[in-house]
């Protein structure tokens, strides 16, 4: 396992276009009363941060993508976006 490196991944999970986001809509509706009438298209999704040990960045990305497909996101209503970067050795 000497060749393994550590990567930090961030997964940004958002609603698929057309899927209602009642939580985002509720927050957006509350903003004008607080003096912010200039906000639109507010959507609330999830952000997942994790550390994964892999041989290289491609493997890390491929694994996180597989995790999104299988468990982290639900393709019926969610889209996801992945960013991965290598961490300095401890």
């Amino acid at each position, binding site marked *: 396992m000497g060749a393994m490196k550590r990567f930090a991944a961030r997964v940004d999970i958002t609603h698929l276009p057309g899927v209602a986001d009642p*939580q985002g809509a509720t927050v957006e509706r509350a903003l004008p009363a607080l003096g912010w009438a200039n906000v639109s298209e507010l959507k609330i999704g999830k952000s997942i941060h994790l550390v994964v040990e892999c041989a290289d960045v491609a493997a890390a990305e491929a694994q996180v993508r597989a995790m999104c497909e299988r468990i982290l996101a639900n393709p019926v209503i969610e889209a996801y976006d992945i960013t991965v970067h290598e961490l300095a050795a401890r």
Partner: protein
Amino acid sequence: MSVRVGVVQFPGTNCELDALDAFDRLGAAAELLWHGDATIRGVDAVIVPGGFAHGDYLRTGAIAQFSPVMGAVRDHAAAGGAVIGICNGFQVLCEGGLLPGVLQKNAGLKFLCDTVEVAVVSAASALTNATEVGQILRIPINHFEGNYTCDAATLAELRADDRVVLRYVANPNGSVDDIAGICNAGRNVVGLMPHPERASEAILGSTDGVVLLRSVLAAATTPAIPG
């Protein structure tokens, strides 16, 4: 021989004992099925009960669908056996792909524990075979994520195939098409948000859930008619 009903227990499930009670009271032999065992031990019908499997963390049902027992539940369903998901169980069946769609947060963004009216839309399912279409049932709901959502093509298919089995009379949670329960193409896998076990004794305020539980027992002993 009593009908054997298996009630799946994930960590975080909390309506499993209630389901055992309600089925036992109808003369069935109800038993728990542990999520970590890859078997349903030959039961006639499987109930995936309400609660918060795995804390409902990430998404409701997201982690539970991978439990070893779910493989056996899938096999039972594929063989035409009755599988009923109640509340959290409905969410697990959707996440696990046994039923289409997904249950999102209630439109009002609040948890709802209340008694509602649902109308039977189809009497052809493992959950409704003893009911009549149009029958109105008063049954408690108890959920934060009961807002059924699916894409337009799925909804059209559900409607065309008479697979919406229960509708809310007054939609409490924003569900598309007032959907309270649906079934699969084989009509043996059914998910619903209301809790029939909570409407199974007069002293609890309603016995309208009994007809649904009896339907499950009937389905469990009738060989499946392929859909």
